[in-house]
């Protein structure tokens, strides 16, 4: 009896030790990543303009346009992605016939997993050439809006194209999450709205959207996080410069941190590597903040809505 007890206890100890060890391993790995990133970034602060190798920019002047480009591209993509994702999510959750909705839901989930290099290949070989004539038309007819003023890029490899590719990438993610949230709307709320004589849209506006507001925000934040860190699709499509520019259709476009690392890492020497790693750290911090906000909103929602009980 006592022998089996000892075995049992040893089993317990080994198993809990293993679980504990795994948790500690994560602490250690992340500490290693943080230490390495910071240690490797520090030398970059002292980099001279000639080492930065960007037409006499200092290290801090180099960070600014990259940060701008990263956030600008991601924000632009949200302008396309959010309304379309909400549309898709609502269509699947409340408008489409039930059987069709199931199939569509699965298809959207699959698209969320398509590798980014495939999106990049599509963006550069299919989207950019076919959208260039539209850009040309826009500079001619809408050029009075500052964002669309020319001279138009002859290749279509502009920040707007990148934003569209990013939007196409994150639409499946945002809409899949939103759809889940919309489907969780308590049926009682929906039926109550309909019983009061609301039209379908009024029901959606009064019952579904308010219920899902926090979920929508966190889904959008997650999509934004993905867009900020996206590397290959931007690297393959964009015509990059290290500048701050709000023009959407010109050849000169602000590049993003992730794409800038991917394109320049192979050629980087000595302190150049440190500079790129420092930009990586910056990207890490930006995504961290975004994800943090998303988590905060999710946890609030979990606390206040009774839906998950």
């Amino acid at each position: 009896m006592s022998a089996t007890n000892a075995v049992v206890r040893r089993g317990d100890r080994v198993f809990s030790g293993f679980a504990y060890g795994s948790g500690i391993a994560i602490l250690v790995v992340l500490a290693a990543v943080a230490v390495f990133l910071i240690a490797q970034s520090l030398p970059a602060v002292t980099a001279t303009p000639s080492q930065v190798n960007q037409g006499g920019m200092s290290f801090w002047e180099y960070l600014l346009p990259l940060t701008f480009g990263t956030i600008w591209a991601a924000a632009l993509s949200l302008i396309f992605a959010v309304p379309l994702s909400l549309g898709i999510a609502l269509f699947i959750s409340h408008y489409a016939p039930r059987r069709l909705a199931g199939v569509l839901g699965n298809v959207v989930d699959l698209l969320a997993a398509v590798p980014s290099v495939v999106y990049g290949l599509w963006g550069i070989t299919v989207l950019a050439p076919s959208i260039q004539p539209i850009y040309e038309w826009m500079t001619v007819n809408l050029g009075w809006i500052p964002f669309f003023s020319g001279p138009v890029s002859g290749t279509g490899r502009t920040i707007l194209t990148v934003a569209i590719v990013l939007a196409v990438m994150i639409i499946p993610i945002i809409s899949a999450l939103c759809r889940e949230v919309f489907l969780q709307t308590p049926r009682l709320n929906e039926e109550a709205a309909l019983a009061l004589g609301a039209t379908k849209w009024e029901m959606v506006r009064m019952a579904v959207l308010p219920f899902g507001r926090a979920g929508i925000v966190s889904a959008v934040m997650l999509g934004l996080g993905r867009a900020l860190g996206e590397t290959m699709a931007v690297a393959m499509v964009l015509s990059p410069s290290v500048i701050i520019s709000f023009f959407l259709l010109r050849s000169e476009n602000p590049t993003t941190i992730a794409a800038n690392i991917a394109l320049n890492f192979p050629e980087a020497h000595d302190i150049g590597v440190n500079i790129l790693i420092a930009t990586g750290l910056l990207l890490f911090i930006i995504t961290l903040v975004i994800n943090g906000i998303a988590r905060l909103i999710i946890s609030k929602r979990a606390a206040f809505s009774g839906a998950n009980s």
Partner: protein
Amino acid sequence: MTDLTYSRHRRSVRRTVVDRLMRVLVILAFVIALVPLVSLVAMTIAKGLNRFDGEFFSSSMRNIVGAGGGGLHALVGTLEVTLAAAIISIPIGIMTAIYLVEYGRGRLAKSITFLIDVMTGIPSIVAGLFAFALFALFFGPGIRFGLGGAIALSLLMIPVVVRSTEEMLRIVPNSLREASYALGVPKWLTIVKVVLPTSIGGIITGVVIAIARVIGETAPLLIIAGLSTSLNYDLFHDRMTTLPVFVYTQYTNQGADAQAYIDRAWTGALVLMLLVIALNIIARVLAKVLSPKGAR
């Protein structure tokens, strides 16, 4: 009186119009979003089929200049690197989740939860930079090998596995655990025999989705796994090409006969997409087959 009917009538017309309009807008949003997505899939299939042949799956790029050749070496590399990443991440991920749900209390558990959140935010290229710098420290800056890629990928995979497993473990009702304890079953056996089997369907789905998520990663592998034109089965030595890197390099390093390279890139993309879709379908099937009857 007539005024009132009139206004009520007008409002209901307005409401109907708004309702119709929103219905049209929702459907329109759906259709607009469908255009690029359908174009993406259609193009990948149409262009990928050009080289979707026996040769693509039976040869590498060794000694190939221009047309011909294939992606066998990249396919093998992808499978090996991803498998290695899975072998590293799955035990750590699942055990961490078990720790968080079954054992973890207090500050340590809180900080691990927070760090998992931090990890989800690591951009993939930063994971690659980390793996590279880690191994460059020991083996010099020329280090390129498959296992390094696997380690970079596990950095991306572990948080996904932890999150999904955690969620699955949390929905196992406490009454099951208590019943087991009441029978005198020790805690670890309760977890292994009761908690895990109950949630195994969801856990495996989460794992497979995590695999699907990292199998298409390009940037970290470009940095640490490198590229080679030959087959390499050895994760520990020499460069190893994976499918996403193959697609990227075929596109960016086109030779004189550019079309042959572009065709191979598209076929690589198609194979990659099929792999991801297959993994997703496997996840669904496993979830259905393995989850105990009645649950869900």
